[in-house]
């Protein structure tokens, strides 16, 4: 039985707790990532990037920060349903990321309908092109930038390359990569001697490697990504292609790919990358130190770009509050010190202009430490002029 005094204390405590809950505002960032399914490894690293940005920021606009992961299960349909559900249930407004372009396109539509903000790192040109919308921002260089920044350097360094064979995933991202590669090769007077399409479910590439061998190109241009690209490179090296031609993987995961393949395989292979941890930019040095301190590891591409996207969102909220209209206005045209150096968000199509790296795998004997797996050959910015993207923000 409670005494009168105890009852008063209990009531007062309850009141304090309730008032505390009511006043402690919390800002939720929704992390759209495939933490299960075919691209689960990417999603787990991405999640670390969001956590790191939240940890580093502490509070935004005076609010405590919270991350909720929306697991896309590597399935665009599931992603659309789950995003729809959190918007309906929690009035969610702030979304980060996506592994697949098809998912980003579907999620972008939902967030735009809800009037939120969505910053993603998917590659398909449509995201800041024909399918762009006012809620959607993209941090990564699109396929146009990736192909031009990496292939141009490879061709400049190897003037003897006259023929190219491509291996392409058959979906919007791969098609855009191939289209951009074709335009560039034609411009440089280099012949595309063949292309093999594969589905996203493919794991056996020996047939395509055989076709590439038969075509005898000077350069094998890989336009796939993730574990698909890892398998393709491993099988290409096993078939002895590295001794017969140059190999370029345009869209690599940077250090992840190099670690998985190991220096024995990756030595001499070119890797295009959105991010490289050796970047000298102060914001990157800070980020790498944070990652090593918090997780004891050198950051990779998924972690880096989810970190940068979350940081962009949180900095904007901190500056102008939680009104998506004000955040949008703040982000449009914003220049800032990013993890790849000076970065700028174009107002016309919401594309971030940032550097794209070309790396070359090092031999084990040349490595200074376990992370020194590649040398940076170039860092370039290539973006379609806004008048050519086809983007009308709506």
């Amino acid at each position: 039985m409670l005494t009168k005094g105890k009852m008063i204390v209990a009531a007062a405590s309850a009141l304090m707790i309730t008032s505390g809950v009511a006043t402690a505002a919390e800002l939720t960032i929704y992390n759209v990532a495939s933490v299960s399914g075919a691209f689960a490894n990417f999603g787990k690293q991405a999640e670390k990037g969001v956590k790191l940005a939240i940890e580093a920021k502490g509070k935004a606009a005076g609010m405590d920060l919270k991350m909720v992961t929306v697991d896309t299960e590597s399935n665009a349909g599931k992603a659309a349903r789950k995003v729809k559900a959190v918007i309906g249930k929690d009035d969610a407004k702030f979304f980060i990321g996506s592994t697949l372009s098809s998912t980003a396109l579907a999620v972008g539509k939902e967030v735009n309908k809800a009037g939120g903000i969505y910053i993603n790192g998917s590659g398909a040109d449509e995201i800041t092109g024909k399918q762009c919308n006012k809620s959607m921002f993209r941090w990564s260089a699109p396929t146009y930038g990736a192909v031009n920044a990496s292939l141009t350097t490879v061709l400049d360094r190897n003037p003897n390359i006259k023929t190219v064979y491509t291996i392409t995933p058959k979906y919007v991202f791969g098609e855009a990569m191939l289209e951009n590669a074709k335009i560039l090769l034609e411009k440089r007077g280099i012949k595309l001697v063949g292309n093999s399409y594969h589905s996203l479910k493919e794991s056996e590439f020996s047939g395509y490697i055989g076709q590439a061998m038969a075509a005898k190109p000077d350069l094998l241009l890989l336009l796939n990504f993730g574990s698909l690209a890892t398998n393709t490179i491993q099988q290409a090296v096993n078939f002895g292609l590295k001794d017969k031609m140059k190999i370029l993987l345009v869209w690599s995961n940077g250090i992840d790919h190099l670690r998985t393949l190991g220096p024995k395989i990756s030595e001499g292979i070119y890797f295009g990358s959105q991010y490289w941890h050796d970047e000298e930019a102060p914001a990157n040095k800070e980020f790498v130190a944070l990652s090593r301190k918090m997780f004891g590891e050198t950051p990779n591409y998924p972690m880096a770009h989810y970190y940068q996207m979350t940081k962009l969102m949180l900095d904007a909220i901190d500056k102008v509050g939680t009104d998506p209209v004000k955040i949008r206005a703040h982000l449009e045209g914003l220049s800032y010190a990013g993890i790849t150096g000076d970065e700028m968000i174009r107002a016309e199509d919401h594309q971030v202009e940032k550097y794209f790296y070309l790396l070359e795998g090092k031999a084990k004997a040349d490595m200074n430490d376990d992370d020194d797996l590649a040398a940076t050959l170039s860092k370039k910015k290539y973006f379609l002029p806004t008048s050519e993207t086809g983007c009308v923000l709506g």
Partner: protein
Amino acid sequence: MSTSVPFRVHIAASVIIAAALPFLVPSTVLATEILIFGMAVIGCNLLLGYTGLLSFGQALFFGAGAYIASLTAIHWEIGLIPVLLLTILAGAILAAIVGYLAIRRQGIYFVMLTLAFGQLGYYIAFLAEEITGGEDGLLDVPRPPLELPLLPDMTFANDASFYGLTAVIFVLCFLMMQRLVDSPLGSVLKAIRQNEKRAEAIGYQVRLYKIAVFAFSGAITALAGGLYAMMLNFAPLSNIDIETSEQILFMAVLGGLGSLYGSVIGAGVFLVASDFFSELWPRWMLLLGLFLVVVMMFAPGGLWHGLVVGFERLRGRHKTSTEENDHG
């Protein structure tokens, strides 16, 4: 529930399921998805649970329904009912063709044929990107308005109103399928499942019945696929993927074969559990698999049959104790 259950009980039960579901799960969108997959699982149950036909091609009908509904809704302004009727018709015709060809073989060969047709459909959808959107799927799928004579047009822009529409369609489908399985046709299907040769010897044209049940299954599964595309405003390629067939089968086995209630329970438990487990561990499919193993060990007939058996045991114990008290 057995066939002796009065039809009004089925009416009441299906209405209660549809009305209560949004309050039992975390979001209206998830509730809508459960009813939609409940219909798809009913389609699977008609084949496997009632007729003994194990089909790995259900995603073909689900995906085809999603594409037909999306394309008609995007390109033709013909209203909701014609869109859904076309979807149902296309699903029935496609399934009848698949059924006609697949039932020429039995056992494992039949299963392999359904799998092959499913994969064929997947690659056609994957390659015909001008029509299906390929890997990107079809974006901006509208929800057409419901146009009824003498009434103003009804729109389903928000999730709650779309749930209402789905719930009405679910109740109608559930009751129609319950009528079907309780009808003489349903009895013949069960006879085919129990002993196909005997059913044939009695004089039933087993092949025709099998084609018919394929058509019913295709129709309801395509309808579910069409509603799913409208729910998402998007028709992803994954709708027609083998994984969708596997999930529908998983739900059917989990809920209980040979029961329409089991189909709905299977869909509900699978979708809620997959949402729950996916937040716990990236390899959540393993947890779901373990869950199925546990269900199969303790309720081999699936969750619905487990519930029925449990309820009957409780009732029996209660009856015995009441009788003992009466005698005592």
